[in-house]
C-alpha cells in the first residue's frame, strides 16, 4: 500500500469533522464520522444526510455532429438502454456490458440537451473512459470532468436543498437540471443510492467545500460516511459493482433486466446491437440459470460476502452471498446473493455456511425497505 490515495475536494473537511478515513477505489474516503454507522444510517432514513461521492467518475459525451441523437445512438452500441428515447432533463440507469453478457459497470446517463452526462463508478472510471473513447470516439468528444459530487439523501433532502434553490421542489425522481445555488453553477439530479428521496449535485471542484458548508448549516443534515452508504443501499436492494455485479454476472442474472427496455429487446425497434446481446436477449427469453435474490438470515448473525449457500444442510454449495451485513432500519441481518433460479422464489429457505455451521436463510423480495422516491 505505497500507492498514494487520491483526495476529493472535501478531504480536509472530512478530517476536521473527525471522520475515520479508509482507502476506497483509490481515494482516501470517510468510512464514518463520530456519530457512527448506525446513527448515520438512521439519520438518513429519518431526516437527511450529506455524502461526498466526488470519487465517482463524471463524463460528458458531446456529439461531434451537434446532434444529440448521434451521441445517443453511439452510446447504445455499448449499453442496452434506451438513450435515444431519453428526454432532455431526464436520467436513466444503465449497464456497460461485455461480449459474454457480463456487466462492466453500472452508471447513470442524463440528457443535458446538447450533451450526455454520465456518472460511473470510481473503480471502473479509467476502464469506462477507455471503452467510451474506443467505442464512440468517432462520434463523440469524451470529456472527463474533474468536479465534486455531493449526494443529499433522506426525507428532509428536498427541504435542505430548497433553502438554496426553491426549484428543486419541482423536480421529480430522475429529473436533471442545471441550477445556480447562490452563485455556484451545479447540475442536480433527483436520484441517489440509499432508497430515499434525494439529490446528487455535480459542483465545480473549487466550490465543493462552500456548497457542503451551506448544506451542513441545516441542523437536519449530517455528514454520512461510506459505511452507512453501504447499509443504506443494501436495504434498498441496490447492487454494488464489484460485489453484487461484475464481468461474470449478466443483467438478467442480476435481476436488472428492468434496465433493458423493450426497444432494445428482441422484436424492438433497436433490438440488440450491444456487447453480449445474444446472451442477454436469450436469457430474457428463456430465463437465467441463477438469479440475484434478497436474503434474510433466520438467526441474528449477519452473513457477509462469500458465505456459501446450500439447498440442504448437508448439500453442496449452489451459490453465495455477495453483499450482507446488518440493516439498521430492518433491525436485523440481511443479505443479497445468487441462487439457482429454482430456489429464487420468495419464501424459499436455504442454508448459509457461517463459521462452520449451517444456518437457515429465507429468500425475500427486494428491496428490504420501501423506497421514498418522489415519482409524481
Amino acid at each position, binding site marked *: 500500500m505505497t500507492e498514494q490515495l487520491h483526495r476529493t475536494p472535501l478531504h480536509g473537511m472530512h478530517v476536521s469533522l473527525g471522520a475515520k478515513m479508509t482507502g476506497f477505489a483509490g481515494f482516501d474516503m470517510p468510512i464514518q464520522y463520530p456519530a457512527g454507522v448506525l446513527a448515520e*444510517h438512521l439519520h438518513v432514513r429519518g431526516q437527511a444526510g450529506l455524502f461526498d461521492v466526488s470519487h465517482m467518475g463524471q463524463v460528458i459525451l458531446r456529439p461531434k455532429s451537434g446532434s444529440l441523437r448521434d451521441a445517443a445512438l453511439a452510446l447504445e452500441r455499448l449499453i442496452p438502454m434506451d438513450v435515444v428515447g431519453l428526454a432532455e432533463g431526464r436520467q436513466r440507469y444503465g449497464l456497460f456490458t461485455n461480449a459474454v453478457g457480463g456487466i462492466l459497470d453500472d452508471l447513470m446517463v442524463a440528457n443535458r440537451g446538447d450533451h450526455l452526462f454520465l456518472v460511473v463508478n470510481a473503480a471502473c472510471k479509467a476502464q469506462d473512459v477507455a471503452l467510451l473513447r474506443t467505442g464512440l470516439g468517432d462520434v463523440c468528444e469524451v470529456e472527463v470532468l474533474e468536479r465534486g459530487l455531493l449526494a443529499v439523501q433522506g426525507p428532509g433532502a428536498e427541504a435542505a436543498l430548497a433553502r438554496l434553490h426553491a426549484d428543486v421542489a419541482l423536480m421529480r425522481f430522475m429529473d436533471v437540471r442545471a441550477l445556480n445555488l447562490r452563485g455556484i453553477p451545479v447540475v442536480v439530479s433527483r436520484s441517489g443510492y440509499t432508497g430515499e428521496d434525494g439529490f446528487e449535485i455535480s459542483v465545480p471542484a473549487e466550490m465543493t467545500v462552500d456548497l457542503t458548508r451551506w448544506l451542513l448549516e441545516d441542523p437536519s443534515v449530517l455528514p454520512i460516511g461510506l459505511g452507512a452508504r453501504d447499509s443504506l443501499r443494501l436495504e434498498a436492494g441496490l447492487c454494488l459493482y464489484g460485489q453484487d455485479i461484475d464481468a461474470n454476472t449478466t443483467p438478467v442474472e442480476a435481476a436488472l433486466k428492468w434496465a433493458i427496455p423493450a426497444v432494445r429487446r428482441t422484436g424492438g425497434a433497436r433490438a440488440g446491437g450491444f456487447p453480449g446481446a445474444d446472451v442477454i436477449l436469450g436469457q430474457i427469453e428463456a430465463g437465467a440459470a441463477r438469479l440475484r435474490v434478497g436474503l434474510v438470515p433466520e438467526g441474528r448473525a449477519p452473513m*457477509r460476502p462469500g458465505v456459501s449457500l446450500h439447498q440442504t444442510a448437508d448439500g453442496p454449495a449452489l451459490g453465495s452471498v455477495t453483499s450482507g451485513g446488518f440493516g439498521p432500519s430492518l433491525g436485523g441481518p440481511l443479505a443479497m446473493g445468487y441462487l439457482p433460479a429454482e430456489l429464487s422464489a420468495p419464501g424459499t429457505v436455504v442454508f448459509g455456511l457461517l*463459521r462452520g455451521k449451517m444456518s437457515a436463510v429465507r429468500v425475500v423480495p427486494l428491496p428490504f425497505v420501501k423506497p421514498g422516491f418522489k415519482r409524481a
Partner: protein
Amino acid sequence: MLKYTEEHEWLKLDGDEVIVGITEHAAEQLGDLVFVELPEEGKTVVKGEEIVTIESVKAASDIVAPLDGQITEINPAIVETPALVNEDPLENGWFFKMTLADPSELDGLMDEDEYREYIA
C-alpha cells in the same frame, strides 16, 4: 485494578473469578456491535482460543480466551443488546467470567499504564 491483553481485553479480579470484557479502545475501533455469540458456561478454554464471535456493522471479529481456565458465567445482556458493549464496555458491557487455571498468570498481563502505551 484492571489487567489488559494485547487483544484489547480487560480482566478484573473478582474473588476467585476474573470478569472479562473489551476495552473502550477496542469498542471504538470495532464500531457499533450488532451481534455477539458467547461460549457455553462451564467450557474449559485455552489461552488464545477463539471463544466469542462479535459482529459490528463493519465486520466480524473473534475474542480469544485471555488465559487458560473455565467459563463460569456469561453476560446475556450483551447478546440481547450488543450496543451495550459500545455504550459501557467497562461495566455493563462485560463478556464473561472465568476461573483461571493459574491465577499467577494475571501478573504477566499489562497494567493500565502499559496498555495506554501499547495503544498509543
